């Protein structure tokens, strides 16, 4: 190859992908980053919905990585295509609803497509043998390379010396001796390499970047599928699962209760889509009703709304019930439901 070799790096925003890209760039390869948005990402801004989390650094870590590296970053919306990965993973789920192996295969496949379309030569990931229980095992990493179609154009710079040589190494585009042989779950080698490269303030390693690995989130997603009778979702569904207190008094409807000011503000954006309830006599939550509540259900939801308001100990709370479509709200005076009367199995 007489031209400079070109690689596309999967950049998640985590430390490993940052380092993997840098290791390859050190060898004179032109690198551009690619980041796939599935909708299930745990990003700084999700945390920033809640007022108590406002002090957390708010940034898109993939963009931050690209800026540290000085490379372009192509952010690709794969929300719709990714549904099949979540709903029908061929390799199954991990401990929760996380289809990690299928996810990695899918993303490397997409990167491979981009590589071919844009005249690039190989793909980089920050995977390390033995680091993650599903997709980064010695027996599954070859499956990723094979089933994604990337084959030996997939390079894992941080653990390449533990794996068979890839095409870029055999062709001399990469010097294998300048790649690494990390393995296992310890992040110490990565943190030492970050220090060597002068990277500070990176996203915490093993911090959990996907809501599908979160038990509480997975329980809510499973509840959504079970009550709808089908495994489907749209972007609004998966966003709403990230916020609020969810209660399901019956199979036909669920309450999404804003827990504080930040969540109320976020839920405001959905008021036109759902029946919603908000206290008017006292400060309190905005509550969305997802499903098909009847009149008695709305009365119950009003009492629950009152329970979670500042009027929880008052004899009576007035709430406004708003229907989608801009009809004038209905005002109800309700007695807040005592907490001991709320069955624990209503909490999703």
């Amino acid at each position, binding site marked *: 190859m007489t031209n400079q070799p070109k690689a596309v790096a999967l950049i998640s925003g985590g430390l490993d992908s940052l380092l993997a890209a840098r290791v390859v760039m050190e060898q004179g390869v032109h690198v551009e980053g690619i*980041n796939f*948005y599935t909708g299930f*990402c745990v*990003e*700084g*801004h*999700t945390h*920033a919905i809640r007022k108590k989390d406002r002090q957390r650094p*708010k*940034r*898109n870590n*993939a*963009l*931050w990585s*690209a*800026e540290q590296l000085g*490379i*372009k*970053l*192509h*952010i*690709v*919306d794969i929300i719709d295509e990714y549904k099949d990965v979540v709903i029908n993973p061929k390799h199954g789920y991990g401990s929760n609803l996380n289809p990690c192996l299928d996810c990695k295969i899918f993303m490397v496949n997409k990167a491979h497509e981009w590589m071919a379309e844009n005249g690039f030569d190989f793909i980089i990931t920050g995977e390390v043998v033995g680091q993650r229980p599903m997709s980064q095992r010695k027996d599954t990493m070859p499956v990723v390379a094979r089933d994604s179609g990337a084959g030996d154009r997939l390079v894992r710079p941080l653990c390449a010396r533990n794996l068979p040589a890839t095409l870029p190494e055999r062709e001399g585009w990469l010097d294998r001796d300048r790649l690494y042989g990390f393995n296992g779950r310890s992040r110490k080698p990565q943190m030492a390499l970050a220090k060597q490269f002068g990277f500070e303030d990176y996203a915490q390693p093993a911090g959990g970047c996907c809501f599908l690995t979160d038990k509480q989130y997975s329980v809510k997603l499973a509840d959504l599928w079970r009550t709808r009778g089908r495994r489907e979702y749209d972007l609004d569904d998966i*966003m709403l699962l990230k916020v609020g207190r969810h209660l399901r008094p019956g199979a036909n409807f669920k309450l999404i209760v804003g827990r504080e000011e930040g969540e109320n503000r976020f839920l405001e*954006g959905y008021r036109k889509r759902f029946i919603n309830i908000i206290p008017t006599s006292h400060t309190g939550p905005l509550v969305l009703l997802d499903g098909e509540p009847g009149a008695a259900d709305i009365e119950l939801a009003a009492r629950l709304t009152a329970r979670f308001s500042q009027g929880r100990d008052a004899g009576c709370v007035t709430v406004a019930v708003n229907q989608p479509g801009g009809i004038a709200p209905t005002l109800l005076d309700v007695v807040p439901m005592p907490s001991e009367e709320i069955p624990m199995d209503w909490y999703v």
Partner: protein
Amino acid sequence: MDPVIVDARNLLCPMPVIRTQDAVQKLQPGDSVKVLCTDPGVLHDIPAWCRVHGHEVCAIDELTGEIRITVRVGPS
């Protein structure tokens, strides 16, 4: 030429960045995009995306409940 309007209200990052990226791909250097947003994360993310890709943030207007960011497309 008036800026192309990108409505990213009620979208959480990175969707406003993706929408901006997709709009800019269809434009020429010197054209501009005005992105309407509600997620305060855009105050960091869109400028960061512009720095990474060589575009210019011309204006950031913070209104009640809405943020408007104007981006000028840089050279390819």
